[in-house]
């Protein structure tokens, strides 16, 4: 493998890791507030479809992105209604959301399979992109990739340095104590779930507008589940999420490259790599972080009415 190939591979790593990063941070926000959302996979496909359709009709990639975010927001609101308002089981509600999302996109999207849209194109940052090695890896992408560089920092700052972020964390750890301190636990959870849904929606939009520029069913292809796994791998910390997302981006890029060069290995085994890696990553994070890997204290536990 020569040098240029490695640089190209690393650039592809960033490209395919970015949607996973958005989704991971979205799920992380939701879980920080104490709500486990297993609907990511379904939300991702619905938002990818919404983004694609809006971009196709209006011709505006930015409107498409917004539509993706809103679609993720709405799906998450459904999860919020079932789990926060009606106190339904979080695991089952999330699974139902994934089933629903898969069904909806197949139902609505079939006539549009294979259609193209402009979406987001590569825009090399002048100056930065001409830095040797780093330039082509990090600064010859679409705008959404550049936004994703700021996102983990913003996430960290929000969680650690703002009142709202700290309140969300408190509710995720111990809703009763948060309520005693004068916070509104249910409202904070609504914020975490729907805000997280919006981020997941952006990741869906990335898939249809920046990654493929076209629509096919099953576009999310398990990335939503990978994101859920990465939150555990990242110990609910945004910067570790970056490591995880790029790890996956790398494997996906590597797998595609290897398929293109036509190895003797069956393509099915290459396609298995990201899924196998998900399990391996979970094993490794369990190994390393026996104590640290505990999530928010009230994760998955609904806020029951008192009395």
């Amino acid at each position, binding site marked *: 493998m020569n040098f240029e190939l490695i640089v190209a591979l690393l650039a592809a790593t960033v490209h395919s890791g970015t949607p996973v990063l958005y989704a991971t941070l979205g799920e992380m926000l939701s879980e920080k507030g104490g709500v486990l959302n297993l609907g990511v996979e379904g939300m991702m496909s619905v938002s990818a479809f919404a983004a694609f359709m809006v971009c196709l009709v209006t011709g505006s990639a930015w409107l498409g992105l917004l539509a993706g975010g809103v679609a993720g927001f709405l799906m998450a609101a459904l999860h919020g209604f079932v789990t926060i308002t*009606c106190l339904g089981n979080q695991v089952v509600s999330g699974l*139902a959301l994934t089933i629903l999302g898969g*069904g909806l996109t197949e139902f609505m999207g079939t006539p549009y399979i294979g259609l193209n849209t402009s979406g987001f194109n590569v825009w090399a940052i002048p100056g930065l992109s001409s830095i040797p090695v780093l330039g082509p890896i990090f600064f010859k992408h679409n705008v959404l990739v550049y936004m994703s560089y700021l996102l983990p920092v913003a996430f960290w700052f929000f969680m650690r340095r703002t009142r709202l972020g700290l309140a969300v964390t408190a509710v995720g750890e111990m809703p009763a104590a948060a309520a005693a301190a004068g916070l509104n636990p249910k409202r904070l959870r609504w914020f975490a779930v729907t805000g997280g849904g919006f981020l997941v929606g952006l990741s869906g939009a990335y898939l249809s507008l920046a990654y493929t520029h076209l629509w096919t069913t099953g576009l999310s292809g*398990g990335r939503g589940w990978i994101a859920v796994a990465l939150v555990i791998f990242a110990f609910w910390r945004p910067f570790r999420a970056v490591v995880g997302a790029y790890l996956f981006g790398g494997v996906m890029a590597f797998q595609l490259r290897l398929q293109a060069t036509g190895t003797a290995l*069956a393509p099915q085994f290459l*396609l298995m790599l990201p899924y196998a890696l998900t399990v391996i990553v979970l094993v490794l994070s369990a*190994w390393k972080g026996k104590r640290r890997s505990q999530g928010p204290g009230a994760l998955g536990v609904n806020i029951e009415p008192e009395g």
Partner: protein
Amino acid sequence: MSTFRIRKREEPWKWGALVTFPGALLFSLSICALLLLWQDKSVWQGMQVLWAGTFGETWALEEALLKAVPIFLCSLGVAVAFRMQIWNIGAEGQFALGAIGASWMALTFPGLPHWVLIPLMFLMALVLGSLWALVPAFLRLRLKVNEIISTLMLNYIAILLIDYLVLRVWKDPSGFPVSPEFSSAALIGKMYGRIHWGIALCVACGFAVWAFMRFTRLGYELKASGEGARVARYAKLPYSFLVMFVMGVSGALAGWAGALEISAVVGRLQPSVMAGYGYTAIVVAWLAQLQPLAIAVVAFLLAALRVGAENLQIELQIPAAFGVIMEGLILLTVLAAQFFSTYTIERRREGEE
């Protein structure tokens, strides 16, 4: 002024299920009516076609019963695990491994007599199906790896494994991505019309699970362990053993579903046997509140819904995903509506406490 307050009921509302279930169904149907309108179809006509395809005609009932078989077995399996709060989302993959195991035997020993080959196929389906489930169980026990994600990832891997097998190892001479047809010794006979003897296996498994949960000590311990590992440890229950046990049973049942599907319905291994039964099974298990008899009823209902959706596709060119959407909606609405069987809303006057 009066305010509203949510309070937990002293005991669950007995008639709750009778109100919430039809209500949820009605609600989901009305959302689906909107989808029909969106596709420029007549709602009335759509509902008629859906009805004809679900309960209106004999062929539909027969087809529904046929589809209910794999859903029932998978659902029975996941329900056993859910009892213990073990979230086995991997019925789809365990089903695939069962189909692979049965095909392996059928394609390797096509000349064996029927009564030797069939048990061999089901034995291999049991072994592979339960092994596929025991890996996540082991990872959970040893390394606390979340079983929801590991079982799911194994689903994706299992489906790719089928693709690989039919494309490379067991490729049919015709060149299509399917295995060669099985010999007649590997096929399960028909009982009535298209209904095959696999129904008998379903009934036997259903009874076995019911009796096991109801009458055996192990079944009782299993329910008790549903409260979590710590409770089980206090009660000196063999928690690790129970986890491995339920996952093994779960995988075996889903594996049998896969073996039945290819030996009684399809007659060869082909990727299209993966029709999402494993995911529907989760919906069924939850709606039936993990009770074997209720699982049989709900599995049949959702299988009928699938047939109805396929009928919609044939008659009105409406994507069959219609059925999947309804599944998701029904589950979400039932989940939300269960609120009323556990909680009540009280009206309070000011000053009252």
